[in-house]
């Protein structure tokens, strides 16, 4: 369809909307934002007549590549180190995708602009596509990769795992609370516009370098829809900016959304890219370098900064602090070590790091070896059962961390941990911003104004609480992370499948009692707690 025809067709389609006079649409999902003064902003034009064939063509390419990968024995050259992490990633990501579909009516309800409604409804269908195409990719991995364990229980594992819960914020944050906070600022303005770059562009690059060209095939196809979504989000953002009353809410939500996305996405994708790869070329970009390019330059400098001309205060401090955490405070390395510490309650295997990996990390992150090298040597030393416990229960100079009540990634940058009594409970936070998110932002009042539509942090937020004082073997069994012989764990701290004696079983992990740091913290006296927190913070990780 020519551009002229498309413009004419789009104008025609806008005639389909009307102002209701008999009944007011139900307010299913409220917002504290107001759009009374908003000028109508038109997002990218899309009509269904061209949309469906376009997407079908994209699909044909994806499914053709999938057939080709199987015919060409792609799995002869896939790195297991890489594909194991996909058991975690691909268990998480279809839920945020489908949540994005579910978020669209929230934005439609909140924003009085029929031209945006069309774009949002098209996005809804895109997101159904993304979710199911990703589930299908995972199914293909399960069917063709050497070790299907973990892929085979994927959605159950996602729903009961500590890491799955971290990722779940990325979906639940889209569909809950204030409609604009959730479906616009958190989902579109930050997650889609900023962080899909690392999710769907940077990470597939790394997949290809590890012999997996299907992840790039699927995720680049997904990413090709994102520009329309970004356009939807930007249109709504500009409409919200037209009313001064929205400015404090926008600034609140940009701070929350930016920081939460950083905490969650950088933790996961940073780990996959840095610790899931076998490609240790010195000139291949580290996650920090990718982040600088995709997030700092492409998003922060090109997208966020120009919003200042509308009088919006951009969270410069949080952008810089995210960068600081990644480059100087070892955020990604800490998360990777934490995931590896928890290997018995994972549904994927984590490879040990070798001298080649050490050399690369030291090159990219000077000082890495002195902080993490010894721990990874211990991980390697303790990889097999028989003579030792899982590393979390051995003395390797690592204290199991407190969980951040807000982002649910543990407080791994220990000197930054905030401890406060909130809602009659001692809670730990990874950072001041996560504390602020719980104590200030997600409340019914903000900055002296009522915010009844703002969401709440709910649920059993510390995963460890559910398993407090239980035997590790019982926890693993309860979670279902056991292979089909009824005794071998799905998670293993190595990639050796050729020798059954190297595979940990329930008997090998029995006798280790798992304790919840938060339960213990709340049982402490004030003096005990202060001493405990001081010691925890003193075990900091900032580069000397």
């Amino acid at each position, binding site marked *: 369809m020519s551009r002229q025809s498309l413009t004419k067709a789009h104008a025609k389609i806008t005639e389909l909307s009307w102002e209701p006079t008999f009944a007011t649409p139900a307010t299913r999902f409220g917002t504290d934002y107001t759009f009374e003064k908003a000028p109508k902003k038109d997002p990218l034009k899309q009509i269904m007549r061209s949309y469906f064939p376009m997407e079908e063509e994209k699909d044909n390419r994806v499914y053709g590549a999938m057939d080709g990968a199987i015919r060409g024995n792609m799995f002869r050259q896939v790195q297991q180190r890489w594909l194991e992490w996909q058991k975690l990633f691909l268990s998480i990501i279809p839920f945020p995708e489908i949540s994005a579909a579910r978020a669209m009516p929230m934005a439609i309800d909140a924003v009085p602009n029929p031209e945006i409604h069309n774009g949002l*409804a098209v996005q*809804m269908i895109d997101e159904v596509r993304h979710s199911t195409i990703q589930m299908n990719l995972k199914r293909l991995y399960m069917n063709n990769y*050497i070790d299907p364990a973990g892929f*085979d229980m994927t959605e159950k594992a996602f729903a009961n795992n500590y890491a799955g819960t971290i990722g779940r914020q990325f979906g639940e944050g889209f569909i809950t609370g204030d409609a604009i906070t959730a479906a616009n600022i958190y989902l579109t303005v930050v997650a889609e516009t900023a962080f899909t770059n690392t999710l769907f562009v940077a990470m597939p690059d790394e997949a290809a370098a590890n012999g997996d060209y299907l992840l790039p095939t699927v995720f680049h196809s997904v990413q090709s829809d994102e520009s329309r979504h970004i356009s939807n989000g930007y249109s709504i953002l500009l409409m919200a900016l037209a009313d001064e009353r929205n400015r404090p809410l926008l600034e609140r939500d940009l701070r929350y959304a930016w920081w939460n996305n950083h905490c969650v996405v950088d933790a996961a994708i940073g780990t996959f890219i840095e610790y899931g790869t076998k490609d240790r070329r010195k000139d291949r970009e580290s996650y920090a370098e990718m982040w600088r390019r995709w997030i700092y330059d492409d998003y922060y400098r090109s997208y966020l900064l120009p919003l200042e001309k509308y009088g919006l205060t951009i969270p410069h401090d949080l952008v810089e602090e995210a960068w600081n955490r990644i480059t100087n405070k070892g955020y990604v390395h800490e998360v990777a070590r934490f995931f590896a510490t928890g290997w018995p309650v994972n549904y994927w295997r984590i490879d040990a790091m070798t001298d080649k990996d050490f050399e690369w990390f030291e090159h990219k992150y000077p000082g890495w070896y002195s902080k993490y090298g010894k721990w990874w040597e211990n991980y390697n030393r303790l990889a097999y059962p028989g003579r030792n416990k899982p590393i979390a229960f051995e003395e390797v100079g690592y204290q199991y961390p407190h969980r951040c009540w807000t982002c649910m990634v543990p407080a791994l940058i220990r000197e930054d941990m905030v401890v406060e009594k909130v809602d009659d409970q001692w809670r730990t936070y990874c950072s001041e911003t996560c504390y602020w998110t719980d104590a200030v932002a997600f409340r019914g009042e903000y900055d002296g104004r009522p915010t009844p539509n703002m969401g709440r*942090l709910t649920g*059993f937020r510390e995963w460890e609480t559910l398993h407090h004082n239980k035997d590790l073997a019982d926890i693993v069994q309860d979670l279902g992370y056991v292979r089909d012989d009824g005794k071998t764990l799905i998670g293993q701290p190595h990639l050796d499948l050729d020798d059954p004696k190297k595979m940990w079983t329930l008997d090998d992990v029995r006798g280790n009692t798992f304790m919840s740091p938060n339960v213990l913290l709340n049982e402490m006296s004030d003096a005990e707690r202060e001493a405990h927190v001081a010691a925890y913070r003193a075990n900091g990780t900032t580069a000397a």
Partner: protein
Amino acid sequence: MTETKQRSFPTIEFTDSEAGALEFPSSTSRAYNYYKPAKLRATMYEDVTVDVQPDPERHLSQGWIYGFGDGPGGYPKEWTAARSSNWHAFLDPNEEWDQTIYRNNSAVVHQVDLCLQNAKRARAYDSWNPAWLKFIERNLGAWMHAENGLALHVFTSIQRSGPTNMINTAVAVNAAHKMRFAQDLALFNLDLSEADVPFDGAAHKEVWKSAPEWQPTREVVERLTAVGDWCELLFAANIVFEQLVGSLFRTELVMQIAARNGDYITPTIVGTGEYDYDRDLGYTRNLFRLLTRDAEYGETNKVLFGEWLATWVPRCLDAAHALQPIWSQPAEKSVTFASSLDAAKQKFRSLLEDLGLDSPKELDQ
């Protein structure tokens, strides 16, 4: 002269990581094992849809981690008055997922596009009589608003609220159908307004907004958008409104009389909407049959649906009766309003019977 950068690329390594390369525990566990498929072997649809939306009653151990300011987050079952002992038992008979959505809708798009191109090439509109042009201008023009309103503010809305991914995905596809169909009607309207025939492409707005015969229909559509209970909304839209108003207009009028008025274009386009509704009724029927046959809640659901029928049937019948004058507008009047309405009512009764619901008394009046 700039220095040529040394090319750098990763090394391929043969890892022998194919399925079957080694035997070890779970090495042959190649099916999703966290749900029980409806049949012996899981379908592609089930594999890519089931449990993607978590449920605290299934595997979700930490509960929903975000809530609304005034209630729990996620997908509370209390968002409808209908009850089920197992919402997850619902599976979409159309088995919609990525490939089916785009293949089906692309096929429809190609069909409509080809049809419209042929119409232009054959100057098909030239032979339409003025009464028929006016009929299409006013009535199909008005109807496309209803389709669009249902797409954006009924079905798109419902798919946020259902308690399972299987329900919400089926409804999302329903929304896509409606949006595509509404747009196809609008672009058909555009083609007609650009053809060398007396056709006012803007007339539909006023007809939808003010013409007396269409106001009760607009009222029902607007009242639908005001319903908060997602299940009532689906019931009222797909079981009641579509049967008594949608099918009455599309199936029992347009599809029956267009050809006799020299129009072979409109039935091709409206026929795609009929095909959509046939699919969408399929999943809707399955869902409500599941609810009326529920061993624990079937009877209370039937009472509830009876209340919904009592609300929506009179409104839809009012809308249907108001449309009566448009049966007289075409030059060739091959069906009467009475026969069309009888046919629509009969199909509606049959659907209700299939669901185990009593026909409301208003149908006999």
